[in-house]
């Protein structure tokens, strides 16, 4: 099963992945129109303390705490990918509290959001395509 992996050695901390993620999930066709004057809510985020930096996104855990803790069954794991059904999410934030990686976040409009490996955005995660240094890869391990 292909996953998104991050090679810390090559992460430049440029945060392009964050913007590519936000754009991919905006439903718009032009990045400028999608992200102009918008506070982005990407599903991948760069952790950077000035010395070490790397991007973090959903690990699609085999025993996902977010799925187990979801009180409405909005979060499900199918074929190794954890997805969220926004219509069923009641915004209780339990998944946000339970994810050890901080990779489930509020959309700001009630429901939660998370990385779904760009399944509906062409199949190859846009953070991977947008990374200028091969620091984010989509591969079997």
């Amino acid at each position, binding site marked *: 099963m292909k996953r998104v992996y991050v090679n810390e050695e090559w992460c*430049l901390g*440029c945060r392009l992945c964050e*913007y590519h993620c936000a*754009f991919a999930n905006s439903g718009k066709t032009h*990045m*400028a129109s999608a*992200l102009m004057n918008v506070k982005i809510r990407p599903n991948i985020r760069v952790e950077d303390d000035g010395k070490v930096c790397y991007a973090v996104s959903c690990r699609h855990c085999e025993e996902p705490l977010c799925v187990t803790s979801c009180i409405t069954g909005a979060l499900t794991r199918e074929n190794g990918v954890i997805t969220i059904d926004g219509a069923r999410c009641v915004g209780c934030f339990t998944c946000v509290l339970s994810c050890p990686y901080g990779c489930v976040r509020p959309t700001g409009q009630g429901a939660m959001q998370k990385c779904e490996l760009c399944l509906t955005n062409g199949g190859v995660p846009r953070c991977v395509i947008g990374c200028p*240094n091969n620091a984010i890869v989509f591969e079997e391990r």
Partner: protein
Amino acid sequence: MAFTLLFPDFDILRDPNRCIKCRVCERQCANEVHQYDEEHDIMLADENKCVDCQRCVTLCPTKALRICENEQVFRKNANWRAQTIKEIYRQAESGGVLLSSMGNPEPFPVYWDKTLINASQVTNPSIDPLREPMETKVFLGKKPEMIERSADGTLKTELTPQLELKVPLMFSAMSFGSISYNAHKSLAMAATELGICYNTGEGGLHEDFYQYGKNTIVQVASGRFGVHKGYLEAGAAIEIKMGQGAKPGIGGHLPGTKIVGEVSRTRMIPEGSDAISPAPHHDIYSIEDLRQLVYSLKEATRYAKPIIVKVAAVHNIAAIASGIARSGADIIAIDGFRGGTGAAPTRIRDNVGIPIELALASVDARLREEGIRNSVSLVVGGSIRSSADVVKAIALGADACYIATAALLAMGCHLCRSCQAGKCNWGIATQQPDLVKRVNPDIAAPRLVNLITAWGHEIKELLGGMGINSIEALRGNRLMLRGIGLNEKELSILGIAHAGE
């Protein structure tokens, strides 16, 4: 002085209809040109710091940025050009020698661009390299005068060591120190995959790169940094660097700020100390002295490796090459005045030395006249920009070409010519760890392989067009060249006829 008379060289144009204030430009610029103003929610730029490396332009996800020439002008003056005036301002402020990087950018004639290649028509068939074999492999080193075989056909002549290259190209010397660990690793990986060689430059060989030894030329220069027996034995050939095209007649100076960690270990000098390569080798003041070093190195490596002597193309190059050929060297490398550098005094880079085309033609002719052409191979560098330049160089008499600027471009260099600042935004000419990681060898090495592979295809096409099926058959074949717009003297030095003749 509280203020500067200098105005910025560049303008930074940001399209407000495209900028999404993602601040990638700000994070990627080591020169700190871009800045986000939180109070007004706008991106600002300080043009004074911009070197036009285009890192921000390339990485901007909405293509909102453009770096343009600053339109601010001085009053027109054919004698006092803007560049000249600015240099005077700069020196009046600093009191120092002007420093520059990469090759001579001045508008001197480029003879490659005034030379045209022949092709077969009607009477001699051209060759299609996609259908017929085409040999691009070359061997560099002293060639025997004659071959003797014993009665059973085995070779009696003792062959001298040769450097085998799959295409007549090598990556020329760039030291670990002047370029980053990752840039060096990319060159080593690419050279190994391509079956060619890269060159350590005068910075020693990092222990991680000994595994690429078969495709490494180890350099011995006037500072002798990082030279020891294991180093000499690690490479496929040893190069004695007498001079460099970008700065003939002067040595090198890698500032102490770049002598950090691994660079210091590899060079075998203390951290923070300036690495100063003297202008001359202090043990070489004659061809006889050079011969001593050539043979010392041969002794040290049991006569198993060819010795290259690299010199800058200067006025008396033919006589110098003749002397080198007699010193026991196996290969002469000549670096033309447009060759690159990590740092050189501007006046030297822009005014000293001669074009490689003329140097090559006169050296090849001189060695032939003296009957010693076969005792050395000739490698030329100093702005070989394309496969066509390679073919022209071989037709003028070269055995192979050295390329470096083209290789750096393949790795991302944008020729902003600011290497001396050590803040290369492309991670090449820097030792700053956050910048060094911008060259990922897994990306850069395949790009280098692509470049040389592409040139290899083009060389075959050009050879085939001339009805020639091997590099050997083109070498020194000046009938395949014609000059265009050249005067009689230039044509006679190049040893070629004018187009139409």
